């Protein structure tokens, strides 16, 4: 069955329209790759999926339940990786990760962190303060965060930024492992990431140039207005003042 679905999503950011009438679905073990131009709404879609923002129209469901209904449960099952690494310069890599482990209610925190650090090959940096890390090491620390605890859904926004070729391969391997456990990965990337059979979601298809949208709105408006004959009264009164 399809686990994670979205239907008829329309997204607005600030005052501009990002995409409209977008639908997606993902089964356990699926990987969905978001593609599109700059500003096509890859980040926005990931934020919608995470529940950080609400779609203007449409719903996102997990096993049939609207994610807006139980946000805490949805947050517990997902890991989100944004553009920023959220690493405090004065805290060590371990301490940086510790907060997220604690917030997820993980029981054996140290073991989990050890495992995550090893998986990303930064175990030796455990005690290093955030400010001494290179950007690639910071990114890997951020990636280590998504390995903490149980999760069913990874939402990765440009996870490869700042990573070298080997780390990318490492990431691909982690994603494969996660999928083998039944996890769903949805990601956007500019680099080719070696992922087996991803579903491709091309956001350019759902872009609505704003002029078309406005024309459409006007047409709706006109049909409504033509039903009532005194439609321009408002304007004339305004001119009279």
């Amino acid at each position, binding site marked *: 069955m399809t686990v994670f679905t979205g239907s008829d999503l329309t997204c607005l950011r600030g005052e501009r329209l990002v995409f409209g009438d977008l639908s997606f679905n993902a089964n356990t073990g699926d990987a969905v790759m978001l593609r599109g131009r700059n500003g096509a709404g890859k980040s926005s879609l990931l*934020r919608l999926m*995470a*529940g*950080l*923002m609400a779609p203007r129209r449409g719903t996102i469901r997990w096993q049939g339940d609207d994610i807006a209904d139980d946000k*805490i*449960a949805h*947050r*517990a099952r*997902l890991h*989100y990786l*944004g*553009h*920023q*690494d*959220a*690493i*405090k310069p*004065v*805290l060590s890599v371990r*301490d940086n990760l*510790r*907060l*997220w482990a*604690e*917030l*997820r*209610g993980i029981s054996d925190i140290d073991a989990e962190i050890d495992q995550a650090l090893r998986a990303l090959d930064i175990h030796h940096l455990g005690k290093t303060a955030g400010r001494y890390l290179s950007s690639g090491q910071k990114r890997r620390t951020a990636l280590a965060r998504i390995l903490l605890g149980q999760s069913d859904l990874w939402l990765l926004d440009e996870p490869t930024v700042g990573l070298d070729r080997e780390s990318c391969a490492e990431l691909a391997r982690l994603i494969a492992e996660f999928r083998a456990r039944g996890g769903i990965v949805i990601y956007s990337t500019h680099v080719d990431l070696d992922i087996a059979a991803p579903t491709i979601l091309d956001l350019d298809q759902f872009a609505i140039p704003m002029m078309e949208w406005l024309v459409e709105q006007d047409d709706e408006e006109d049909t409504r207005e033509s039903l009532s004959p005194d439609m321009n009264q408002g304007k004339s009164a305004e001119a009279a003042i």
Partner: protein
Amino acid sequence: MNAFVAILRRDLRLALRQGADSVMVVAFFIVTTTLFPFGVGPEANILARIASGVIWVAALLAAMLSLERVFQTDYEDGTLELLTLSPVPLELLVLGKVCAHWLTTGLPLIIAAPVMAVMLNMDQDGFGTLMIAMLIGTPALSLIGAIGAALILGARRGGVLVSLLVLPLYIPVLIFGAGAVEAALLGISAQAQLQIMGAILLLSLAAAPFATAHAIRQAVE
């Protein structure tokens, strides 16, 4: 509850490592208080008369000075976004952060206040009440201030803005805080004022985390 402790511990650790924040707030408090004798003259009786008000005003300004940073750095480095996405009510996390803010700024102010009271020649009768009033009042300042700090996330000129938003809301705390000390100095019971301050604290404890969390969700959207 674990989440509350977790965020509190992390924020305290951050404050400890960065160090300067608490020291700066206390230094600002002392410097501001010191300015008053220069402004109104060094006569001991005048200073004694205005001491409680001066200490409260300086404490208000000092608490506000540190407010802007409560959420700002977390907002900028993406931490706030992740906190919003963690499987814990954001209100609880806000409460943890406010608690950390109070421990790193409010508490040092309470310790510094009697020293300044001595320097301003305040009568000894007022000391106890001053400490108690500040103990009740400064958490309310942190709670109310957090709303302002969350509202200005992403705004231009946030620092100036936060003072414009928050200072009018601080007026009740100032009135009753200074009033309590005044009453104690006159030898009257300050219980009424302290009770009202307690009520203000409880009200802000009940309302501020929700308002702050709402503002944060708006900011990270």
